[in-house]
């Protein structure tokens, strides 16, 4: 009987430990950006495409550089210390070393342009990112909305199928 208990205990410890490791894996952690940009503050005023202008023309959404920020922040619209940081970047002409949050596995092909052109809302894939003060959990450094691998593919696939877009593997896989 004792042996059984030891064995069961072991199993429990193992499962708990594994779960702990999984739930606290690095891709769930907060991301430290050079400037703590607050999406929630900006989204009521600006459209996503105002800053991420790449979505309409190309592959990458593009993350704005300081000069774009300065279009508004030239005037003292904010007293936030983060806004001050932007100014510093702009004045020194340095690039803001944004940490990229959304990245696809490198065997995948994805371009924003055709998806935006088809009228897909940013939220469909990126969730309610606009209302977040800081992007934290659920957003992987790889994948979209924390979806990766098969889940992500299933999502792409169902949408493509529903809209009659090609579901040929080589459409999305390099």
């Amino acid at each position, binding site marked *: 009987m004792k042996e059984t208990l030891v064995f069961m205990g072991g199993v429990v410890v193992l499962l708990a430990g594994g779960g702990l490791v999984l739930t606290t894996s690095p891709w769930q952690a907060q991301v430290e950006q050079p400037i703590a940009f607050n999406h929630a503050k900006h989204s009521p005023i600006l459209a996503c495409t105002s800053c991420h202008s790449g979505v309409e023309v190309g592959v990458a959404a593009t993350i704005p550089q300081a000069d774009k920020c300065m279009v508004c922040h030239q005037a003292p619209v904010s007293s936030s210390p983060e806004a001050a940081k932007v100014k510093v970047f702009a004045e020194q002409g340095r690039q803001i070393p944004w940490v990229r949050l959304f990245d696809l*596995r*490198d*065997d995948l*092909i994805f371009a924003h342009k055709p998806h935006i052109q088809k009228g897909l809302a940013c939220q469909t894939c990126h969730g309610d990112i606009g209302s977040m003060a800081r992007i934290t959990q659920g957003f992987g450094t790889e994948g979209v909305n924390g979806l990766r691998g098969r889940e992500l593919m299933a999502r792409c696939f169902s949408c493509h199928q529903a809209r009659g877009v090609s579901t*040929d*593997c*080589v*459409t999305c*896989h*390099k």
Partner: protein
Amino acid sequence: MTRWGMVIDLDKCAACQACVVACRAENNVAFAGEEEAAKGRAIFWMQLLPVAEGEYPRMKISFIPVPCMHCDNPPCVKVCPVNATYKNEEGLVGQIYTRCIGCRLCTVACPYTVRFFNWYDPQWPTEMASSLNPEVYVRPRGIVEKCSFCVQRIRRAKETAKAEGREIRDGEVQTACAQTCPGHAIYFGDLDDPNSTVSRLAHSGRAFRLMEDLGTEPKVYYLASGEWDVFKHPDEEAISRRRLSERRKQL
């Protein structure tokens, strides 16, 4: 529907292997190195094979460039356990690298032996890694790869055509091998379009395919090399001599 196919004119092929290198450069195929190559582990999506026959001095080597045949009835697709290789609507036999489990049943099933396995991770010196084609995935070890008919170029041509609101033109898509072939011996295009170059050449009397008896229906056609009229009748020779001066005047 488009059905991509290739025609290789062996009469024009100069056996230079530009196709081989162009393919490797375009598709991020790493070189294997001396030891690995000696073991037969070098990867060539396009390969020049010498077929030697005869003995000195009556010897003959014929060279055939061999890419993946993109069979209409591909033996590799039949046996893949995980759908990592498949035939798409346009007849391309695609390989989905992230799906492949590396069982190599497709490689042994392929009668043309044109499927390759990554025995190791590709070894690029850092300097050379910077010249990799960003449009093509760099395959890690343990999976099977093969000629894709430069699917990235097809994709690109489609986007162009779509953006310009037209169909893809014949000859617009060129695989890396076809584009570089100094002998202009490789043609690529739509076999289903009766007016395309490839479909016309594929219907030529010189056209043949490798191992047609296996019923794999390859979409790579070869045009046999011709022969100069060696066996001239003596009378003909006399006639040709008499005509010689006339022909000279015409020139």
